């Protein structure tokens, strides 16, 4: 089971976060200040660390820089109330692997934490040649996608979209996360522009099958159910 360390001075927020992660089957330990957080990181045993950027005493950036200097290479997700682009860049420069601004959707946080945990498991994001999710099979080398015995013909972007959904099969992914990971743009797609791409993909994926695989999760995003 994935073990997460949360360093967050806002106790309410930390508890909510811990609950949200537990719902998704992730065990989380909580510390409320930078110094304790750093000691916990040194002790080890965590797969991912979630650091709040603004904390009294040792803040998130200082904590992370110290940890990185000491050779602690745990994947780190930064939380910040600032939420501006330059803050994100600053956080990533300080050595964070991902960044999320408050307020965030718990599903998005879970998706990102799981992606970080997986990266730790498989090195740089999965080297396998074939992805499988239920009866869906994607060959990353020949680029052939098959559901059961039926070949599915995908455009390059649809292929990337499906690859990301398959890597996160069973989990909700938000529109912002899709735009970030599939299109590589960091902004909030305020419209249904992502929805249209999903419905195209869904039409190809679920056409002729009784059971739909690609679901819309209201208020959250999308989910590929194996």
């Amino acid at each position, binding site marked *: 089971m994935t073990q997460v360390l949360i360093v967050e001075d806002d106790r309410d927020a930390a508890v909510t976060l811990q609950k949200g992660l537990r719902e998704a089957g992730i065990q989380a330990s909580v510390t409320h200040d930078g110094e304790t957080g750093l000691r916990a990181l040194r002790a080890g045993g965590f797969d991912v660390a979630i650091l709040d950027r603004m904390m009294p005493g040792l803040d998130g950036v200082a904590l992370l820089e110290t940890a990185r200097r000491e050779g602690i290479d745990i994947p780190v997700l930064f939380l910040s109330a600032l939420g501006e*682009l330059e803050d994100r860049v600053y956080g990533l420069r300080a050595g964070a692997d991902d960044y999320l601004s408050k307020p965030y959707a718990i599903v998005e946080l879970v998706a990102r934490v799981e992606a970080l945990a997986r990266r730790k498991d498989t090195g740089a994001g999965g080297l396998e040649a074939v992805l499988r999710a239920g009866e869906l099979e994607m060959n990353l080398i020949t680029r052939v996608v098959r559901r059961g015995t039926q070949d599915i013909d995908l455009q390059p972007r649809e292929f990337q979209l499906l690859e990301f959904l398959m890597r996160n099969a069973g989990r909700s992914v938000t529109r912002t996360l899709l735009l970030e990971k599939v*299109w590589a*743009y960091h*902004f*909030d797609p305020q*419209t249904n522009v992502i929805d249209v791409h999903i419905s195209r993909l869904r039409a190809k994926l679920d056409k002729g099958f009784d059971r739909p695989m690609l679901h819309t999760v*209201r208020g959250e995003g999308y989910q590929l159910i194996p």
Partner: protein
Amino acid sequence: MPKPDAALSRPHGRSFLRQTPFRLTGLFIVVYALVAGMIFGYFYFANAAETRALTDMRVGMRTDHFTRLYRTQGTEALVQAIARDDSPDGFMVERLHDDQGRLRAQNRRAADMQGRAAVALRGQQVRLGTDLWLYVAMDTSWADRGWHMGVKAIWGGAALLIVLGLMAGLLINREVSRAVNGLLKVLDAVRDGDMKARVALRHSGDEFDALAERINDTLDRMEANIGNLKYAGDAIAHDLRTPLSRLRTRLEVALYESRTDKALVDEVLERALTDTDQVLRTFQTVFAISRLEAQGQAPEPQIFDAQALACDMAELFELLAQDKGLEFGTEFASGIRVCGNRDFLAQALANLLDNAIKYTEAGGVTFRLRHTSAGEVEFSVTDTGQGVPEADRGRISQRFVRLENSRSLPGAGLGLSLVAAVARAHGGRLAIDEGPGIYKKDIYTHRGPGLRTALVLPPV
């Protein structure tokens, strides 16, 4: 609010001695007086030295003359010569006396002088022989008298200078004070909250008028800005109140219904989440616009291929247009590079494309990238939608401005404001023009004239 310092707010209450024009006048008077004194002193010393030299020379010549006379012709001739008073110089005083100081002879001037005190004499006494002294001197009172009259004139002049100077100083002081007090009164009024206060111009064309005009101009702009802020504040309040009150109602209903039907709760909570997201988005966008405007430049700028960005955005939005039955065309010039923040520019283009698709019912949207004749980089989006009347084009990029016929569609009225803010932060602009014309597919669809929005960036 702290009570304003009375001395600062009311300069007319300050002693005139402390006011700048008066102090300047005083300084000028002192300087003029010093210079005049120096010039006068120079003349005095130069003149006095000359007078002394001349006097000494004449006294010497006379003494020599008498000494020669005594040597050649004896005492009696000398006595007679002095008594005769044959000096061409009326100011010469000549006396001859013995060892005991008894007078042997003197000229008329010497006789006149007896009994008169305080006579300025300059001369010498020589011993001619045993028991005989010659005293020759010159009465220099004439020169001193002239000098004294000069000094009196100088004092009078100085007094006049000071009196007239002070009067001029007071006049200047009053004029300047009046102008400055006018300015201060207006600034006081503005500080106390009256944004409408303006300085009355005197139309004299002087510096004070220029200053007053500048202050009025600044106040005009501040008033407009504060007006905009107030408007934006009202608009934010209005925009957030709608989803917040909706959210509240839903939660209230959910609480009420959760007692009877548990299934409804999920749905209501989901909608409440969506509403909350909308409120947060509005906040986030307003925040992003403010940050861009405050910073005046885009964060983390980099040089990249404009065509790649345009292609990405076209690919992202093409399906949206197609889904609505619109044609989606692209015309991208290649090899154009831009400098800026990729994500902000992407968001700006996304907003333009989204607007075009949202407000077009029939026809199509064309997305272009080209160099303008001025060498600028222009991303333009043209649509065949209902367009925007020319009178409204200026204000649709202001925050929270939504035109009447767009209110039924989703949106907070921040899309174009963000584009404008992004454009400005990159040193560019948002251009809004007439579209390609009325689109006629059949007799029923002629929504036209369309709209052309363009993000124009400076060349790299």
